[in-house]
């Protein structure tokens, strides 16, 4: 069996960083990354980007050496992706924040509102309902992160956790401040408005969860395969007929419900900003589906049926 030689150069300076000899032809990029890590302990595999061309795309961990367009002496280029953090860690942190922060406002912890209101609760029943819905939403997200989602990437750049947490925690505090405020004004149309909003919220929560389960079932444990999602026996997944990313559609619906339930402008802002971001993600995902699958159903839109 012919062994390969692998040299790894810095993509920017072209310095020779590492030379590996006697590499098995069926070695994967992942294995090569581990070997590189041994000679450069500060660059753990998750922060290595290995490519064939200094300005080219990163090679995947699963790629096999002898299947790449290289000779028996392979030259790879390395780029440092910077400090990495696992997706699971980021999700858990960014979701635990809103859960706890909202509760602090709900229980009117001191130094938020005037001292005479410390540890009191709102006299409006919709405020209690809103707390239950908000908390339920983030508990659901935490549990999904731990037990449902199958992540394509293990890690993301470390700076993302600061960006993401600022967004989630900041908005949670802003919304919670007004909903739990002693001078909160309950919805104009009273019980009718809240009931309608609650139905929409619950419907979309169940829908969102159904989609997450359906997406999870597309992918066997430990794999990173991508398949076209299709409607299942669960009626909440029938929306796949019209939309590529119904999880985002349902998420939008949930927050619209919460906005109507609380009649709070900051919640509306949060919904709009989230919708813009999710639309960007949905369009990207839709585009990659179209690129990867020739037979992708043409009726589907990225996030809103027929519209967006």
């Amino acid at each position: 069996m012919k062994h390969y030689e692998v040299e790894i150069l810095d993509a920017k300076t072209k310095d020779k960083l590492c030379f590996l000899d006697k590499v098995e032809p069926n070695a994967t990029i992942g294995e090569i990354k581990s070997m590189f890590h041994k000679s450069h302990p500060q660059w753990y595999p998750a922060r290595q980007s290995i490519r064939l061309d200094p300005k080219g795309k990163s090679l995947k961990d699963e790629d096999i050496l002898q299947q790449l367009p290289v000779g028996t002496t392979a030259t790879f280029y390395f780029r440092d992706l910077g400090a990495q953090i696992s997706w699971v860690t980021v999700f858990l942190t960014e979701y635990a924040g809103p859960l706890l922060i909202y509760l602090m406002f709900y229980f009117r912890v001191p130094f938020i509102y005037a001292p005479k209101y410390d540890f009191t609760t709102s006299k409006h029943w919709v405020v209690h309902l809103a707390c239950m819905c908000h908390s339920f939403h983030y508990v659901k997200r935490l549990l999904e992160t731990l037990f449902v989602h199958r992540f394509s990437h293990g890690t993301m750049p470390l700076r993302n956790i600061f960006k993401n947490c600022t967004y989630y925690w900041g908005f949670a505090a802003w919304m919670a401040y007004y909903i739990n405020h002693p001078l909160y004004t309950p919805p104009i149309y009273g019980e009718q408005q809240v009931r309608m909003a609650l139905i929409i919220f619950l419907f979309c929560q169940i829908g969102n969860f159904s989609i997450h389960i359906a997406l999870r079932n597309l992918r066997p444990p430990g794999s990173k395969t991508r398949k076209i999602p299709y409607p299942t026996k669960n009626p909440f997944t029938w929306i796949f007929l019209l939309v590529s990313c119904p999880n985002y559609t349902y998420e939008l619906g949930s927050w619209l419900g919460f906005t109507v339930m609380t009649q709070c402008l900051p919640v509306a802002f949060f919904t709009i900003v989230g919708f813009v971001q999710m639309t960007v993600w949905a369009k990207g995902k839709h585009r990659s589906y179209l690129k990867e699958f020739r037979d992708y159903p043409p009726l589907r839109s990225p996030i809103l049926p027929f519209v967006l």
Partner: protein
Amino acid sequence: MASSEEDGSVEEKENNNKKRTKSALATAWLTFYNIAMTAGWLVMAVAMLRFYIQRGTHMGLYRSISRTLKFFQTVALIEVIHCAVGMVRTSVIVTGVQVCSRIFMVWFITNSIKQIQNEESVVLFLVVWTVTEITRYSFYTFNLLNHLPYFIKWARYNMFIVMYPLGVAGELLTIYAALPYVRKSGMFSMRLPNKYNVSFDYYIFLIIVMLSYIPLFPQLYFHMLRQRKKVLHGVVIVEKDE
């Protein structure tokens, strides 16, 4: 088969012609726009000079040019569209932030808070803005006409060293002077309770705006210093807007 091949190449030629016409149109429009803006700010500069020479004071100077200022500064919003459609190769966000900060100063500070219109700090930033904009727009104009005199290029990449800090000082001092009037009048503010369940305190907002100059100003300033080094002392490359 032969005819479809012909059609293909005719279509390609048509597309190329369309592209050339589009970029010629874009250049013509941008040239017109930059000449118009240079003229507008020149008019303002002359008006300010005449006012001061004739009256010997800056009292009432803002009032005398406020309509021209509001017009030309607001029209600058078009520059965001230029970036968005690709006519100008600059980030939409950078341009957007710059234009919005100007619009904020003009409409939400100087125009809305009449008591500070005769402050010296207002004259300061007006002078800085006028000099900066005349330099900037004439730079773009000459660039588009492929005939850039060195002194315009020199001005664009050197004046900012002094103009930028002076402009920031003028703006900050003006906002600071406006604070007591904002607090007293409660303008642009909304208190609880209200049916939108939101509140906004313009006074606190202005303080946050002032504080935000601290991280933002050095970043922009050093970015421009780096651009200057590249353009004046390094390889001359395609002009990038700051």
